[in-house]
């Protein structure tokens, strides 16, 4: 493969991934509003387009044409840097997400993953940890007590749950004997088992850590509409205000759901019967069925997150950190202990 072809393929991948993430991220606002509305027996947006299908565009135009207000006592550089620091790491996680199996197009073998580095999972969690910069900077630069309190709470949550999420992910990594996201999925396909069946404790811990990292209920204490008026975004206006929920509630949920799918739900593999094999009702799509399975799994996870969000009340900040350090972390460590005994028994 020539260097030119390689460059073109990578450029196409970057454009496609960015377009899909940001486009879908914007449209997930409509999905969230519809789900929330129906849970509360409302129809949600109905006016703009058929059943509100054009509502995200209308919202985008509204946010873009609003006045850009800089608070007089804010630090201008950090204020604008916070948005970049929130958006970029969250999007970069998708660089190591494998969307499907290796495919053969125009005479080239293409892996649908931007960079198949052999430390993919570590990269994902490193970028996830960077998200705290955006939040902390926005809270500090806004020079407002609500924003600062919200940012401090979020920082506390992320510091607690980064530890938990990394230890929870250690289980699948031990079973797959690899840190590469592509190889973890291949290991699950070779061993003919999704790791959710071998790692149920770790899966539950990971889901809770996902909710906490992305600021979803029951861990949305940094938003806390009633007390903090949406926390660290309170001094932002227009599209700058729109970007924070877009990043935190949609792009991060999508990226962590993708990592969750890779670690526990076998990535692009079809429905699994443990230790027997895979059943693929979408066999007629050929190699493309893998992409559809990946999208289906991430969609189900996203809907589950929404369902939880619009059902549960929220924990207090001390309860959240207590759960992280006293319940979740010991469970994750216990899971690693068990996994150490299971891992040698698996072939492959």
């Amino acid at each position, binding site marked *: 493969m020539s260097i030119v072809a390689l460059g073109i393929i990578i450029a196409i991948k970057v454009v496609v991934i960015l377009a899909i993430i940001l486009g879908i991220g914007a449209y997930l606002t409509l999905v969230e509003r519809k789900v929330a509305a129906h*849970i509360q027996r409302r129809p949600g947006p109905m006016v703009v387009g058929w059943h509100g299908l054009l509502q995200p565009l209308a919202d985008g135009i509204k946010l873009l044409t609003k006045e850009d207000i800089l608070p007089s006592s804010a630090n201008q550089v950090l204020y604008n840097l916070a948005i970049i620091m929130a958006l970029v790491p969250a999007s970069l996680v998708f660089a190591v997400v494998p969307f499907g199996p290796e495919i053969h197009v125009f005479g080239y073998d293409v892996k649908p993953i931007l960079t198949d580095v052999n430390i993919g999972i570590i990269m994902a969690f490193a970028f996830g940890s960077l998200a705290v910069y955006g939040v902390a900077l926005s809270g500090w630069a806004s020079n407002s007590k609500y924003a600062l309190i919200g940012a401090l709470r979020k920082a506390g949550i992320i510091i607690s749950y980064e530890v938990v999420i990394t230890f929870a992910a250690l289980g699948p990594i031990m079973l797959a004997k690899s840190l590469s996201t592509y190889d973890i999925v291949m290991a699950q396909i070779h061993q003919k088992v999704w790791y959710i069946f071998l790692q149920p404790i770790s899966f539950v811990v990971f889901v809770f850590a996902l909710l906490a990292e992305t600021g979803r209920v029951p861990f949305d204490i940094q938003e806390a509409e009633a007390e903090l008026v949406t926390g660290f975004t309170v001094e932002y206006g227009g599209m700058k205000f729109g970007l924070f929920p877009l990043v935190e509630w949609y792009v991060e949920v999508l990226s962590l759901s993708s990592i969750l799918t890779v670690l526990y739900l076998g990535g692009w593999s079809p429905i699994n019967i443990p230790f027997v094999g895979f059943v693929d009702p979408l066999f007629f799509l050929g190699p493309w069925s893998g992409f559809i399975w990946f999208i289906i799994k991430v969609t189900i996870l996203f809907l589950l997150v929404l369902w*939880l969000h619009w059902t*549960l009340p929220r924990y207090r900040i001390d309860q959240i950190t207590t759960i992280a350090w006293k319940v979740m972390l010991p469970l994750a460590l216990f899971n690693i202990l068990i996994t150490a005994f299971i891992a040698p028994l698996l072939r492959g």
Partner: protein
Amino acid sequence: MIKKVFEKPLNFLETILFLDFIKGMSITIKQAFTKTITTHYPYEKLTPPKRFRGFFGHKTVNGLEPQPAFDEWVERMKIEPRPGQSRCVVCYLCKKACPVPDLFEIDGQKLENGKKVVSVFNMNLMLCTFCGLCVDACPVDCLFQSDIHETASFSRKDSILNLEKLEAIGKSWQDRREHEPDRIWIDDDARQALWRENKLNLKKVDNA
């Protein structure tokens, strides 16, 4: 110390199976697939009950006046009743009953035959609290509150109701609503269907 009245705390097995989460989520998923209960307001509108306390209006003389009160007050105030026009007898009782009397501006006009008719009746609704005391005070069932509740306007001037507007509101209300039976709509099946009875089944609080 919070005392839990309804539910006993979850035991260990229920906690690790997330029973409380499952209970709550089963309720929300059930609600998510039921019919929505909203009205799409600018496109669909509910009809308020007949006794709704909305914008004010003047009922007109149409033969349905309360008797013998109307004849007595017409005689006492020397009013010329004109069919199709306001029933007002210029008694100022509404103004007396009002907590903010300044919002009324009422005046009568002498006719050539020595009798009177109402000529000025302005209500400044910027000051009004829609308490309905003026309606209770009206002895001839002239001033009333209609079912018009969309009261937004583009200028403060529009919120002052003069005699023409009051009569127009009264006429349209008499055409649309006056022959309806005067009742609260718990026994009106058609209206009841719009609102759907809320069948709450609350547990009794045990204070023991």
